[in-house]
């Protein structure tokens, strides 16, 4: 028997008639995220589950409404969430070269009362965690970012951000995989491809992976 652990704050809500959202918590927290990823992996093995998406601290479950009901799935989620998650293996480590010449780096430095060199130092210091992959193909939410680099999003989002832009916002950092609109502060760029349409999965990063940036002049 595996020990049952209490999940005091989990809430399960319907998302229409064939999906539900299980919220494990509301904090940006590595332990919560580890549990969300483990819960999603366990749910995906069920025949009545079509897809399970790990969020920062939640799992969105698409189920087959001909095989399961909200109530039966919610009970399964609670049971699986109470199990001790398997020992989390350290995610794969990606080393990403970045040229820190983004169009916003001077403005970010001015707003934070730091030098651009200090921005680079603070941004390259941690090993970030991939909390979630999603939003657009290949996008990964990385964090947590150093407190000294915390800034709200830009007031006016850009209508087009070039692919490969390295950006920060709040306690998060990320790399734009495709040219898309975006409201984050662009501090650098990388030539590493995050979206790999002809691979399966088509994405370099997976939830739970680790990412280390290093500065280059290229």
């Amino acid at each position: 028997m595996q020990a049952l652990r209490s999940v005091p704050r989990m809430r399960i809500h319907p998302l229409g008639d064939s999906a539900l959202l299980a919220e494990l918590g509301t904090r940006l927290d590595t332990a919560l995220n580890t549990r969300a990823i483990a819960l999603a992996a366990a749910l995906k093995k069920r025949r009545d589950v079509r897809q399970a998406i790990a969020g920062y601290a939640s799992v969105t479950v698409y189920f087959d409404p001909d095989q399961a009901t909200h109530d039966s799935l919610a009970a399964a989620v609670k049971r699986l969430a109470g199990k001790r998650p398997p020992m989390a293996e350290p995610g794969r480590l990606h080393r990403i070269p970045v040229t820190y010449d983004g169009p916003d780096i001077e403005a970010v430095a001015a707003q934070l009362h730091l030098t651009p060199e200090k921005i680079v130092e603070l941004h390259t210091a941690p090993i970030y965690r991939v909390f979630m992959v999603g939003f657009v193909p290949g996008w990964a939410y990385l964090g947590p970012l150093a407190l000294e680099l915390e800034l709200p999003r830009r007031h006016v989002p850009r209508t087009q951000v070039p692919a490969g832009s390295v950006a920060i916002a709040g306690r998060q950092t990320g790399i734009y995989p495709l040219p898309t609109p975006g409201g984050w502060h662009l501090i650098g760029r990388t030539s590493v491809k995050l979206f790999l349409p002809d691979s399966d999965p088509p994405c370099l990063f997976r939830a739970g992976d680790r990412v280390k940036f290093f500065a280059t002049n290229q």
Partner: protein
Amino acid sequence: MLHVKEPGLFTTVQDLGRPNAINSGVQPGGAMDRFAHLAANLLVGNDPALATLECTFSGPHLVAEHACLVSITGADFDPHVNGAPVPAWTGIFLAAGDRLTFGARRSGARLYVAVAGGVQADRWLGSLSTNLLAARGGMHGRPLKAGDVLSVAGEPRKPAVSGRRVAERLRPDYADHTLCAIAGPHFKRLDPEGRRRLFEASYRVSRDADRMGYRLEGPPLLTSGEELLSFGLVLGAVQVPHGGQPILLMADHQTAGGYPVAAAVVTADLPIAAQLLPGDELRFTEVTVERADQMRRARAHALDSLRDA
């Protein structure tokens, strides 16, 4: 084989989507009106997972190279074969050289064309549906253009017989723009006025409406509380961004987001949402999960006679 003489305004190859790739941030995709897609396939004896053409706001001009069985479902764009009007929601034989054309849009937004054997298309991450962002799937990841040739993917699962039909009473009532919805995870973040408005007020589909989603215009829905951490989204979710003008997520929706989800449209009414046009008024009405389950089963049973045919 069908030759594309004119593609129509925006015609893409679609199927039931690619849910397996959502964890890489790839939009689920697939036909916006799944009922019409499914009916079109069943009418020509196809497996429901085969690809159909989704024609937005106007129809294509297609010429059959060989005799084939086709069907037309969804929106009404006034279909013709060799200049003579033909019925929709039924199987139609085209002889070699026959021309399938469309007149003016009469109702709805999206029309589906199926061909017995299915439309041959690029498979990407388990689906034939077109993903424009990645330029993959369907017709080389792009809408159809004049000069394209559509091959038939294979033999139909059932003998191609014309005359199968979906009676009007079995189709969704596309003219009734009331969308049944289940209260969402963040419904309680709406202020009391917002909770009342969501299920009472009328909202208009703005010009900013495409396969990703529809921005709606109407009385604002105000939310409170701290920012949410991003989570996985679903087709039919009603997101409430800052400013309170809701967004209804459709087939090519972003896979994750952090805006509150006030409600989600039930599966049975997504086909009606798929046929809305900019300027259309809609209303959300609250239903229970149990009611939504009944509605979904009733919608599926409507096509039972075609499955058994």
